[in-house]
Structure formats: structure tokens, C-alpha cells
């Protein structure tokens, strides 16, 4: 009884040694860790524990794709498609196209023309997810009414668009934020229409919001002629200096065809500006438009605001040009970043924002360390004063328990947060519970008149069922907390859950070995507790 095969002892010692090696890099300066990792073979995990933003400092933002703006841009695209289709089909647009909250209405009074238009426009309704996706969902409901043809977006089409918008936004945001020169940024989807952004080390979110808050949709539209029909022009505000300007609704070229944008300086005035370059398709369109409209002012529109409207002096065929607009240096370089990264497919709203400065983070780490240290010392002293040598065994097991929590967090890449530290401190109190259950049981068995070895053995055996039952309940609570909790609370659930598992390993297996070794060394006739 209470004898262990040498290989079992060896494997426990090896586990402890491995845990120590895994944890050590977390207490080294970051630079030393990198150089160590470079010198060791790749399979050895030389990693530091991941600290949550509440400890290392940084900005967290939860953005939501604005469904309404997705619908709005869908309708605008639909209107352009309808116009193009009718133009290609040579059908006169007698009453124009009216945009509605969920679709567009094409007004055509003449019934035969209307029938022709109806047949043509039905081709605009596509199966959702493209022609190969199968299923019976379609993007549009097309119907003929007395006054014209009605095209309505389906809910499924909008949902699909929102999903796509989130995916595209994540790509665009990644490009934009990386251009700011931040490190270890996280941009992830959350749920159906949310995006999480985490930027470690960033404190002032003002610039971040300027960078991520803009749609950055760049359009080139011709300034309206007095002769244009009123429903095909719109009046837009100027971005600077107030005032408005009336432009044609039709977008001649847009920013989607841009391949590059750089902040530069105007060679004549020396003012900051942005130089852009189109891809082949954009360059051809740009060349065509500029050669057909020499002498007319051409408006450069960003997110519905006109940056400037220079007059086209000569056709621009090289596919590149400059945007000037009384920019400051920052504005010009922000605009270049935005144009390079591309436009967001929809408007994003910040629904939650949390920033923690490095000072506050360090304070939290210090406070957590102090609490863990003092709490640990109190428990250690209390255990020794209650159980003597057995208390020392329990305390050694406790130390390994904490070591194993850290090691498994490093291996799993789990994030340590302040509530996570609280969870570890709590498990310091709970970990010894298993030992207490065992020791009290041993005492009881000894009081019943059993010999030392038989009391020890019975104590471990009897207490084990209770230990499992009581820890399963706690573990379930931790698991649910992880599944339903968000952010920092998950950190608590992680350390609580890991702590429960490691405490069973250490309190049961390790203490049992220590007590076994202790017994076989001295063969005591009396229990020390």
C-alpha cells in the first residue's frame, strides 16, 4: 500500500520540471525570450503568458455593422443596375427611378414598354450566394404594378450582404490598422454583425476611431450641368469650409479600382496631398471620362462629402493623379491609408469601447500579485499549523498547482486577466480543499482504530469520490461561465477551470506520493495529524 512504481515518481517529477521550463520565459524580459526562442528548436514552447488588455493596457472596441447602411448601399447599387439594364435594353425611362426603403420603383406609364422592362429586370434577381449555390432564395422580388416595375430586396439577400460586409470589413480594418504600425492587433468577427478590435498598447483611441470610423468610399462624379434632370443630380456638402456643390448622381469612377495611394506634396504649392494610382480597368475608365469631359469640373467625393472639384484640363490617361484639398499632413496621410486599405462595405458603429492605460494595467498586475502572494502565504501557514508535516506536503502540492495553472495557460495560449488572477487566488483557497478532505478522513479512520497505513489508505480512497463529485460541480460552473461570459470574465472561468483540474492532480496524486515516501522512510506508528 502507498507504494509507487519509480516510473510514476519520475513522470511526476518530469511534469513539474517541464512546467517550470514552460513558465520561466513569462518572467523574462521580452527581448531575452525572443533571442532564446531563436536559439532553441521550434517544438520547444518558448512563449510568454498572454496578458489581457486589462493588464497590459490597450484598446478594445466592439463594432457593429449598420444594417441600414448595408441596405442603403444595396439599393443604390440596384438603382444603377436598373438604369444600366434599361439603357442596354433601349427602354425609355419616362418616369425615372424612385428609391424606397427596401427597393426601387421604375415608373413606366406605357404598358408595352413596362412589360418589356419587367422581363428584362427579372434577370437582375439572382440566386443567393451566386448561381451555383443552390437553394431557392433569391436576391430580389420583381413585380409589375400599374405604374411601373417594383424591385424589392429580400431579407435573405440583406442577411447575406451583412455577413459579407463583416468579412470584407475585417480585411479592410486589418489593412488600415496595420498601416498605423501597431503590433499584435486582433480583428475578429463576433456573432452575426459584430467585429472585435483589440489593439494592445494603444491608449488614445481618437486616431484609431478616425482610421476605423470612416467608410472611405471614394467616388468621382461630374459636377452637374444646369440641363441635367433633377432626379439624377444630388447636392453634397463640401468637406472643408462649408458650402455645397451639386453633382450628377452617376458615379463615373470609384475607389474600388485604386491600387495605391501615397501621401505626397503638391509640387507647385508644397501643400500635402495624396497621389493615387488606378488598376488597368480604373485607368481606362478614368481616361475615357476625362477625355470626354475636358473643361468640366470633376468632383472627388469621400463618404458623401466633396473634397474638391478641379476642372479637367487634359485627359488623364496614365491612371494616376493627385487629390488636393487643403489637407494638413495628418489628414493627407490618414486619407492615403484609408484609400490604400479600401472602402468599408458598410458603416460601422462602436457599440462598446474599453481602454486601459499601461499604468492602470501595471497597477492591476501589482495588486493581483500582492493578493496572490499574501493569500498564498496565509493558506500555507494555516495548513502547516493545522496539519504539520502533512500541511507541508499540501503546500508543496499547492505550489505545483499554481505552477501547472500557469504552464497550461502558456501552452493553451489562454489570456490572463485580472479576474483570472482573482480566479487563481480563489483556487489557492479551494485547492487545499481536496487535501483537507483527505486528511480529515485519515484522522477519522485513525480514530476508528485503524493502523497508520490502513488509515492513510482508507482516507485517500474514501475521500476520492467526494473530491470528484464536489469538483465536477465547480468545474461545470466554470465551463458555463466560459461559454456565456464575455471578455474579462472568461479569464476568470479559464483559471478556475484549469485550477480545478490541476488541483485534483496535485492534491490527490502528488500528496499521496509524498505521504507514501514519508511513510516508507520512517514507518511511523502514530499519525502526525
Amino acid at each position: 500500500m502507498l507504494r509507487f512504481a519509480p516510473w510514476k515518481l519520475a513522470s511526476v517529477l518530469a511534469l513539474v520540471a517541464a512546467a517550470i521550463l514552460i513558465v520561466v520565459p513569462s518572467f523574462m524580459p521580452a527581448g531575452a525570450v525572443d533571442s532564446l526562442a531563436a536559439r532553441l528548436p521550434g517544438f520547444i514552447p518558448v512563449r510568454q503568458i498572454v496578458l489581457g488588455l486589462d493588464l497590459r493596457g490597450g484598446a478594445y472596441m466592439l463594432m457593429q455593422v449598420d444594417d441600414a447602411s448595408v441596405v442603403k448601399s444595396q439599393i443604390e447599387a440596384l438603382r444603377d443596375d436598373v438604369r444600366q439594364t434599361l439603357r442596354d435594353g433601349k427602354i425609355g425611362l419616362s418616369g425615372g427611378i424612385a428609391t424606397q426603403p427596401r427597393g426601387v420603383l421604375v415608373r413606366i406609364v406605357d404598358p408595352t414598354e413596362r412589360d418589356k422592362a419587367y422581363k428584362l429586370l427579372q434577370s437582375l434577381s439572382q440566386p443567393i450566394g451566386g448561381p451555383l449555390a443552390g437553394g431557392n432564395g433569391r436576391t430580389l422580388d420583381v413585380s409589375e404594378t400599374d405604374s411601373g416595375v417594383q424591385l424589392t430586396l429580400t431579407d435573405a439577400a440583406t442577411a447575406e450582404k451583412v455577413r459579407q460586409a463583416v468579412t470584407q470589413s475585417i480585411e479592410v480594418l486589418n489593412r488600415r490598422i496595420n498601416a498605423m504600425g501597431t503590433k499584435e492587433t486582433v480583428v475578429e468577427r463576433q456573432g452575426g454583425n459584430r467585429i472585435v478590435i483589440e489593439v494592445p498598447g494603444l491608449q488614445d483611441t481618437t486616431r484609431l476611431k478616425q482610421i476605423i470610423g470612416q467608410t472611405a468610399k471614394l467616388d468621382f462624379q461630374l459636377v452637374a450641368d444646369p440641363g441635367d434632370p433633377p432626379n439624377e443630380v444630388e447636392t453634397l456638402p463640401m468637406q472643408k469650409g462649408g458650402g455645397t456643390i451639386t453633382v450628377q448622381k452617376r458615379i463615373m469612377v470609384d475607389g474600388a479600382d485604386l491600387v495605391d495611394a501615397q501621401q505626397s506634396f503638391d509640387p507647385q504649392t508644397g501643400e500635402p496631398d495624396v497621389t493615387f494610382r488606378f488598376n488597368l480597368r480604373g485607368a481606362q475608365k478614368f481616361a475615357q471620362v476625362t477625355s470626354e469631359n475636358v473643361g468640366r469640373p470633376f468632383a472627388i467625393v469621400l463618404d458623401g462629402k466633396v473634397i474638391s472639384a478641379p476642372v479637367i484640363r487634359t485627359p488623364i490617361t496614365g491612371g494616376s493623379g493627385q487629390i488636393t484639398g487643403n489637407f494638413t499632413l495628418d489628414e493627407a496621410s490618414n486619407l492615403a491609408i484609408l484609400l490604400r486599405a479600401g472602402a468599408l462595405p458598410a458603416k460601422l458603429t462602436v457599440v462598446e469601447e474599453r481602454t486601459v492605460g499601461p499604468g492602470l494595467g501595471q497597477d492591476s498586475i501589482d495588486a493581483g500579485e500582492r493578493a496572490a502572494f499574501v493569500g498564498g502565504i496565509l493558506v500555507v501557514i494555516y495548513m502547516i499549523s493545522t496539519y504539520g508535516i502533512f500541511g507541508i506536503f499540501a503546500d508543496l502540492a499547492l505550489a505545483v498547482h499554481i505552477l501547472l495553472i500557469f504552464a497550461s495557460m502558456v501552452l493553451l495560449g489562454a489570456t490572463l486577466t485580472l479576474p483570472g488572477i482573482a480566479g487563481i487566488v480563489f483556487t489557492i483557497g479551494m485547492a487545499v480543499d481536496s487535501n483537507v478532505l483527505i486528511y480529515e478522513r485519515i484522522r477519522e479512520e485513525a480514530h476508528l482504530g485503524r493502523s497508520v497505513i490502513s488509515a492513510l489508505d482508507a482516507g485517500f480512497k474514501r475521500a476520492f469520490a467526494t473530491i470528484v463529485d464536489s469538483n465536477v460541480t465547480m468545474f461545470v460552473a466554470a465551463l458555463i461561465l466560459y461559454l456565456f461570459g464575455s471578455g474579462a470574465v472568461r479569464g476568470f472561468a479559464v483559471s478556475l477551470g484549469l485550477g480545478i483540474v490541476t488541483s485534483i492532480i496535485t492534491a490527490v496524486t502528488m500528496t499521496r506520493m509524498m505521504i507514501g515516501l514519508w511513510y516508507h522512510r520512517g514507518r511511523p506508528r502514530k499519525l502526525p495529524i
Partner: protein
Amino acid sequence: MKLLRLAPENTKFGFMRFRRVSYPLSATLSIISVLMFLFVGMNFGIDFAGGTQVDMRAKSGEAHLAEIRAEAESLGLGPVEVQRLGAESDVLLRLNLQPGGDAAQEAAVAKLRSAFSTDYEFRGVAAVGPTVSAELEQSGTLGVVVAIVAVLTYLWFRFEWQFAVGAIIGTMHDLLLTVGFFCVTQLEFNQTSIAAILTIVGYSLNETVVVLDRIREVMRKYKRLSTPEIIDMSINAVLPRTIMTATTVFLALLALFFLGGHVIRSFSAAMIWGIFVATYSSIFICSPMLIYMGVRADVFDKPKDQDADAKSAQPRVKA
């Protein structure tokens, strides 16, 4: 070396006699908790109520609370709550949820930044819009409910159903009294409080399981004793362990409460309260429930308990 014993050895307290006191007492406290929750309410933090919270430190000297309050109120952002945080230079400023949806919270943060950033360092900012706060509230409530159901299902499989009922009532009791604790103290109720509540549920069940495990074991062993005698014997047997564990957890939490910083102080306070309530309820609420439900030693005569450890191999005596 003389070892410390907080719990006397071989106690024979008649715990079950107290059920005539503990039940009315707990019933009263539970009702008060519910009434407090309905009519006084908890002090919801911005996680659940929405709004803005800023942790500021004066760049030099101490922070002037009255000035900060006056200046913040002049920004037209509704009621402003300003409180000192530990050090003289640190303050916590809180705004209610701004009308105008999610974007309005952002605007409020920007206004605070421009008003205070010359004299104060912004150490932490949190702004939670109405969409997120409503969701956090839902998922928090759902989490607590699912956790309780999951754990109780486990107990139902592991024990006889009467035991599980006892555990349900004990857990509900602890939950209500913890809610009452938040109402009475008006400690901020935030996401970490949900963590505290779930941990209390876990701890409470842990305590209950230890007591019930022993009751089951003793019932199998001494089939001729009356149920109250069996329960008293079991509780006395696990009493040293109960006191010992409650003390170690209490010591750890005490360190957390005093040294862990303001962010988790309300968490630690709730947990300390929860340890006491859970220990009390496992002894005085869950266990007597078995008497009220008429559990007798013969519930173990059914073949269900083949998994049972202890003494099930002993010859059975029909009661």
C-alpha cells in the same frame, strides 16, 4: 508541535434541532432579498446599465472632486458620479447611458477627453452602448440559469432525487441572499459579479455535495438510526473539513479584498459573503430538507446504487 484545531474533535451538535429556527430565518431573509431586489434594486455597473466610466489621475497634486463634478456637469451629459479611488490623485467618473443610441456614448467620451485631458491622465475608459449592455444582461442571466440546471442534472444522476431537491433549494437560497447582499450594500453589480454568483453557486454545491456524500454513506451504514440522527452524525463528521476549507478560502479572498485593487473588490466582497451563506445553507437548509421529504435509510435498498462506494457490500437490513 501542537497543531491548531479550529473545530473541536468528535462533536455531537444537534444541528437538526435548529431547523425550526433556520428555516423561518432563511425564508424571511430570502423574502427580504426579493423585495429589496424589486423595490430597491441593485447598483448596476455600466456593463449592464450602459454608460461611460473613466478612471483618471491628476497629472500633478491631488484630484479635486468638486471641480471635476462641476466641470463634468457643465458638459450637459446628465448626472455625473465622481468618486475617489484609493490614492488622492485618482478618481472614477461615471456617466449614465446617454440618450441617442450607441454612437452617443462615443461622443460623451470625446467630450470628457477634451474637457479633462490637459490636467488629468486617462488611465482607463469604458463606454458601453445600449445594445451591448442589454445583451450582457441576457447572457449573464442565461449563464446563471444554465449553470444551475447543468449542475443539478449532474447531482440528480449522482444522488437520489431527494438529495438533488435539497441541493436546489440550498442553491436558490444562496443565490437569493447574494442578490440581497448586492441590494443592501449597493456594491456595483457588473460582469465580475456574475462570475462571483456562479462561483458561489459552485462553492455552495461543493459544500452540499460533501455533506450529502457523507449522509448517503452513513445512511447505508446505520440503517436503524432516524434520519435526523444520521444527518447530525454526518454533519459532525465533516464539520472539521467544512470549517477548515471555509477558512482557507476566506483567507485567500480576504487578501484579494484588501490587496486586489478596486476592480475586483466587489467580486471579493460578494464571494466572502457567499462562502458564509453556502456553508450555512449546506448544513441548515439542504440537509434538513431530507427530513422534510421523508428520506429514510431504505431509499438505498433499490438496486440503483451499485456504483456506490462505501459499505454497499454489507448485508442489507430491511427497515
